C-alpha cells in the first residue's frame, strides 16, 4: 500500500484520523464515495475544502435513500443546518454512525435527530408526533398517535416536565443495549 496518495497532505490525514473513528483507507474510500456523488464539483486533490454538496445528492446515496430520517440526519451533521455537506461534515456523519463510535456520542446525535424540529433542545410532543409519522407511514389515526406520544412521555420522562431532555433520553439508551448496533450505517 504505502503513502502514495496525493489527495490529502499528511497533516490533513492525521487530523482526520485523530478526529474520526476511521482509518486511512476508510477515509480515502469515503472521499471517493463523496466525490462520486458529484465528480464535477469535487476536485481530486482537496484543494477547495469548502465545497458543499447539496442535500439532494446526499439524500440520494443508497445508504440513506430510503431511511425515513435522512433529512434530519443531513441537517444535524451539516454546518449550515440545511443538509448541504462539506467533506468534513460527510466524514463526521459516517464516523458517528460507524460501529466504533461510543454510546454517549451516538445518543447525543440521535437525540438531535429525533428532537429539535422546533429547535428547543428537548423532545416535546410535537417532535414525537413527527417522528412517529415518519416511522409508521401515517398508518395510525390521529387519536392513536396522540395516545402513543403520551405513553412515551409517561414512560421516559424522569423529571416530570412534560418533555424529554437529553438526560432522559440517555437514561433510556443505557437500558437498551441494542441501540449501539441499530444506530449504525455501514458504508
Amino acid at each position, binding site marked *: 500500500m504505502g503513502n502514495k496518495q496525493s489527495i490529502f497532505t499528511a497533516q490533513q490525514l492525521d487530523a482526520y484520523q485523530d478526529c474520526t473513528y476511521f482509518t*486511512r483507507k476508510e477515509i480515502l474510500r469515503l472521499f471517493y464515495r463523496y466525490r462520486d456523488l458529484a465528480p464535477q464539483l469535487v476536485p481530486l486533490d482537496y484543494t477547495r475544502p469548502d465545497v458543499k454538496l447539496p442535500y439532494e445528492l446526499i439524500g440520494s446515496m443508497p445508504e440513506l435513500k430510503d431511511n425515513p430520517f435522512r433529512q434530519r440526519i443531513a441537517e444535524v451533521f451539516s*454546518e449550515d443546518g440545511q443538509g448541504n455537506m462539506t467533506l468534513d461534515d460527510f466524514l463526521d456523519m459516517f464516523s458517528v454512525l460507524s460501529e466504533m463510535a461510543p454510546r454517549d456520542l451516538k445518543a447525543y446525535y440521535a437525540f438531535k435527530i429525533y428532537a429539535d424540529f422546533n429547535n428547543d433542545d428537548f423532545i416535546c410532543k410535537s417532535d414525537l408526533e413527527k*417522528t412517529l409519522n415518519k416511522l*409508521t407511514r401515517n398508518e395510525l389515526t390521529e387519536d392513536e398517535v396522540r395516545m402513543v406520544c403520551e405513553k412515551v412521555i409517561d414512560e421516559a420522562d424522569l423529571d416530570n416536565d412534560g418533555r424529554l431532555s437529553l438526560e432522559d433520553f440517555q437514561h433510556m439508551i443505557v437500558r*437498551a443495549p441494542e441501540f449501539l*448496533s441499530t444506530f449504525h*450505517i455501514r458504508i
Partner: protein
Amino acid sequence: MVKELVDMSTRERIHAIRDLPMSFEEKKSIRSQVLAFKSANQSPHFTGFRDFTENASVTLRRWGYSVRSARQTLQLWQGTMKEIGGRFGTSVLTYFMFLKWLLVFNVVSFLINFGFITIPLLVHDHTPNLPPNVNFRGLEILTGAGYFNYTVMYYGSYSNETLVGLGEYNLQLAYFFTISLYMVLCGVALIFSMAKSFKENYVLSDPASSSAWQILCSWDFSIVNERAITQRKNNLSVQLKESLSEGAQTEMLTRSEKMKHFGIHLGSWLLSTSLAFGCGSGIYFLCQTTDDSSWTPLQEAETLLVPFVVSLMNLVVPLFYSLFNKFEVYSNQRKQIYVLLVRNVILKISILSILCYYWMQVVAKKFSCWESMVGQALYRLVLFDFLFLMLGSFFGEFLRKWLLPNLGVPEFDVARNVFELIYAQTLVWIGIYFSPLLPVIQILKCFIFFYVKKVSLAQNCQPPRRTGRAAQMQTILIALLFFPSFVGALSIVAYTAWSLTPSKQCGPFRGLNNTFGAVGIWIDNLQQSSSSYWVIWIYHHVIRSEVFYFFLALIVIIIIYIFWQVTQGRKQLIVQLRQQIVN
C-alpha cells in the same frame, strides 16, 4: 477544556477529541489549539530529545493506523455482511457474525493442533503404516474408518516416542500439553467474551415492551432495502396498535383457566423430557446392537446407522417441541423462546451423555485401539450433522417455498440456527482429544454453511417480524456456548485423561496407566537429570496438592461475595438518586 486536553497523554487526548459531541470544524480547531499550546510551552532544554520523542510517537501512531488498515483488508465477507444487514437487519446479522467468529476460532485451533502435533509426526515419518490390503475406498469419507484409521486423523496413529530430528521432541508430552493448552485458551476466550457480553447487554429491567423504546431506540438504521423498510414500518404500526389495545384491556384469568394452563405446561414438560430420555435410551440400545469390529463392508455401513439416527432425532424432535409450544399459552414471547431453548438443550444433553457414557464405559473396555474408534464415531456424527443440516435447510426453506406457499414465507429463526452451530462445536470439542484434525471438518462446514444460508436467506426468508431483544438473546446464546457445551466437553476430556486407561497398542500414551502419567514420567526424568528445580517444586506442591485448590476456591468465593455486595449497594444508590430526580 483545552487545558484538560493538554494535560492528557496523546492516546487519551485522541480518544477525548473523538468523543466530543461537536462538529468536525470545532474538533479540528480544538486539536490544533492543543497542539499549538503544547509546542509553545516546551522548555528550551532538551528540545532535541523532545523532538525525537514527538516524531517517534507520531510515527508509531501512523504505524498503528496502517496496521488497522491492513487488518481490515483481511476481513472476510465484509460486503456480504453489509448486504445481509441492509436487507434483514441486525438480529439476523448476529447469526452470520457468530458463524464467522466460529470459523476463525476453528482455524486457530486447527493451526495449534496441526502445528504442534501433526507436523512433527509428518516430518518424522510421513507414510502411514497400513496393514496389508487396506486401501482407500470411497466409503471412508462417510465412515471415517478403514484407510483413515491409519492416518494422522486419529489418536491411534500418533507415536509415543521422542522424535529426534533437529532437536528432541517428545510427542507424548506435546500431545498432552497441546490439548490442555487449547482447552484452557478456549475457556479463557469464552469467559472473556461472555463477560463482555454480560457487561454490555444484560439489563435487569425490560423496556423492550414500552412504546418509548419502540419509537426512539429500535429503528434499525442499517436497513437499506426499500421493501424491508416498508415492512418494518408496517410491523411497527401493528405493534403499536397492539400495545395500545393491550393497555385498554386487563386480563383476569379465572382459577380454572389457570389450572388448565398449568396442566398443559406440566403435560408438555413431561412429554418433552420423556421424549428426550426415550431418544437417549433408543440410541444406547442401537449402539449395543451394532457393535462389531469386523471389517466387512456391510458391517461398516452398519456403523453409519447410529449417527444417522442421532441426526434424524436432532432434526425431528425439535419440530415436535415447536408443536407443543403452539398449544401452550405464555405470558410473553420471550418466555416461549427460552422454554423451547431449554427443551432442546435437554434433548441434546441426554443424547450426548448417553453416547459419551457408551464410549467411556463400553467401548473403552472392549476394543484395543478404542480412542480411534471413538474418534471415528465422532467424525461420523459431525459429518452426518452437516448433511442433515443441509437437508433440513433444503426442505425447511427451499421446498417449503415451492411446495407449500400458503404456509407463508418462513422467518429466519436465529435462535435455532445458532443452537445448531453450538451443538456442532460441542462435538468438535469432545472429539479434539480423540481426533486432533476434527476442526478441519468444522472449518469446511462453517464455510459452506455461510454460502448456503446466505442463498437460502435471500431466496426464501423474510426478516423477523418482532424486533425483540437481540442483544440479550445474543448474551444468552453465548452463555449457552459456555455452559453446558464447553464445560461438558471439558469434563469428558478430563475424565478420559484422568481415569481411563489408554489403549496399549496405539496412540501416544500407550503403556501408561492414565494419560496424566505422561507428565509424571517427565517430572521423574527432570528429577533424575536434576535441573529445573522450580518445575519439580511447582508440580509437587501446587498441581498435586489438594490444599492449594482448596485455598484458591476459598479466595475466589470471597472475591465474588465482595463484588456482589458492592453491586447491591450500587442498586440501592440508584433507587435513591432516582427518587431525588423526581422530587
